[in-house]
């Protein structure tokens, strides 16, 4: 048998010898059959991939190869910010001011919430959504307010979906919960790719361009503070807040995790978080714990403050207290 045949199986190469012979035609038939199997298999795979024609949810090549936040040089960061500016402009027809605001020296942020004053109006919830460019459909909220019956801290007894004519209601107190910016954050520990970390000013941030969307941090958080973009966020064009920061409130892509970051685009520029500014009762207090003369230092020293779930050892930077 010779292997020098010149058979014309385009690209398939030749597996059998030329000439007549029963075994040769068997070989040829079997080869043709195998080619047909492989070809129809490939065609079927191609057909089943059809929905990919609508694939627009993933980013550009620059986005794909982008390095981790901590490894970007200032020049590279400038390029990234320019790219994000362009993307936001294209999508929302608004020219944003995207910065990479760094933590300030000698500052560690702490939050305190006065449960005596909170009336459960949820203005903080909505101010947060507006400030931080959260998806409106489906709506993502960083703050969850629980309506708790007096006399218990068992959160299973709390009502998440209360909707009375007016608040507050007698016999209840209201407890807003958001990211506690823990000093010992389980979410940071479990992230397999270091996409989330604690900054020197105490804020736990997320690099939305590095997160792989495994949601392990969501499972790890004892305060249910993290949210996942189950689909492409949608924000009406006229609702965009153009004052943006890379680790803060710039629009997020589909498939990544986000959460409260103490409005770092505001607080790192010397302003208060949006939830605090909107609060009608002054229940929310925020400031620099490293400054002994700050209001927050006074509260922590003089009020009977406590943290949620102290037993899990997360050391929150978010405190609660009662006035009376």
């Amino acid at each position, binding site marked *: 048998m010779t292997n020098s045949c010149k058979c014309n199986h385009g690209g398939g190469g030749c597996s059998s010898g030329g000439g007549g012979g029963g075994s040769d035609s068997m070989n040829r038939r079997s080869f043709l059959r195998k080619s047909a199997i492989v070809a129809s298999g490939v065609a079927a795979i191609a057909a089943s991939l059809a929905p990919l024609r609508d694939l627009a949810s993933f980013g550009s090549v620059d986005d794909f190869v982008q390095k981790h936040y901590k490894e970007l040089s200032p020049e590279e960061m400038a390029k990234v910010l320019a790219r994000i500016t362009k993307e936001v402009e294209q999508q929302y027809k608004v020219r944003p001011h995207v910065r990479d605001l760094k933590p300030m020296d000698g500052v560690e942020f702490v939050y305190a919430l006065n449960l005596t004053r909170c009336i459960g109006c949820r203005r903080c919830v909505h101010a947060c959504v507006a400030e931080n460019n959260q998806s409106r459909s489906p709506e993502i909220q960083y703050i969850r307010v629980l309506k708790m019956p007096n006399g218990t801290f068992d959160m299973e007894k709390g009502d998440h979906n209360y909707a009375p004519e007016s608040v507050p209601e007698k016999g209840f107190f209201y407890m807003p919960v958001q990211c506690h910016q823990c000093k010992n954050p389980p979410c940071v520990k*479990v992230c397999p790719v270091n996409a989330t970390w604690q900054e020197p000013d105490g804020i736990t941030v997320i690099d939305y361009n590095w997160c792989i969307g495994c949601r392990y941090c969501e499972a790890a958080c004892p305060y249910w503070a993290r949210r996942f973009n189950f689909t492409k966020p949608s924000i009406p064009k006229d609702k965009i807040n153009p004052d943006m920061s890379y680790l803060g409130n710039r629009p997020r892509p589909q498939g990544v995790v986000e959460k409260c970051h103490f409005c770092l685009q505001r607080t790192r520029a010397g302003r208060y978080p949006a939830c605090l500014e909107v609060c009608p009762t002054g229940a929310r207090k925020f400031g620099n714990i490293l400054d002994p003369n700050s209001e927050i230092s006074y509260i922590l020293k003089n009020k009977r403050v406590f943290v949620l779930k102290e037993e899990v050892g997360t050391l929150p930077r978010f405190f609660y207290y009662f006035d009376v």
Partner: protein
Amino acid sequence: MKPIKNYLHFLARCGATALDGDWRYFAWVGLLFAICLLGLNAYTKQLVHGLIVTNMSDQVSWGVYIANFTFLVGVAAAAVMLVIPVYIYRNQELHDLVIFGELLAIAAILMCLGFVTVDLGRPDRFWHLIPGIGKFNFPGSMLSWDVIVLNGYLILNLHICGYLLYRRYQNKKPAWWAYMPFVFVGILWAVSIHTVTAFLYVGLGGRPFWNSAIVGPRFLASAFTAGPALIILALQVIRWVTDYRVSDRALLTLRSIVQVAMLINVFLLLNELFKEFYTGNLHVASAKYLYFGLHGHNALVPWIWTAIAFNLTAMVLLVLPASRSLKWLDVACVLAILGIWIEKGMGLVVPGFVPTPLGEVVEYSPSLNETLICLGIWAFGLLCYTVLLRVAVPILKGRLDGSSETLRPTLATNA
């Protein structure tokens, strides 16, 4: 160059063998392939629209993907239950069957990798997980440990199976140093893959249902029940559709493994139930949700009682002499596999999220698209196992070897 050429030739012949078979083979492979494509089609929809096509939520942020992943890590780990008797206790009956167990481990790990991949919101960024190129949070994150142990286990088993089969193909005796060290490392490694997967859950202090020392031992006990049970069934299929002889005695050796593992599994379950319900503190909420329902929500209740009924029936059957007959042994194996699949999958993953850390009760059951993706991955795993066996059996039987160019005819394909 010649060894490389020979090896490539070996691979080519394996490929050709995989594309060869009778109509039953093609019908089976064709069916699995079609289900794979259904799953692939469903996955492309998920890629386009996001995980919103699943029924997962911020409240229940892991679902049936991670449930199947957890179960299959156990199946993969169970290959050692064939390896230990053979290489440590010199059991000759199981000797040649080890390779079938390890091929099953390969297929199971491939399915595991599939299930984690489809669970990712950004699979395009998988390279962030590659040590050296990405930014790997090791040793901090248990998930990074899992990436290492699962891929390591895959490589170990690919090497052991590939090496033994290639030597058989060449009609040469395997050199002990080229595989025995890996076999022993593999035994420890198998325990590690399931322990690390358990630690993924155990390490979360904010989830009392998972944050319990018994989860790891229970994982191993249930894996060493369901895994060998699956191998018992697989071996019977192998001897039914191929000319490979598997003795009844080998199956009965595996039966005693499943028997002991199931007794330990049920004992550990009782330990957990006692701790949860006798203490009666607030942390019992998840267990209460799972077994009895919570505040009128009880989606998992029928499932978990089915699982318990299956496990207990399987245990009784396995202990009784009746299961020395293959018919009853098979019934026990099927019940044990289904029971553990429910209990280790949905029964472990979902209650961990219910109620949420803020006390909210949101239920979960998989969507159609999610289910199709799961079926696709299972079909893919079965397809891999079928093809691996399609190649391995002729090599082990000496019909596919380096000395002849054609596949020697099968003597009998059916018993």
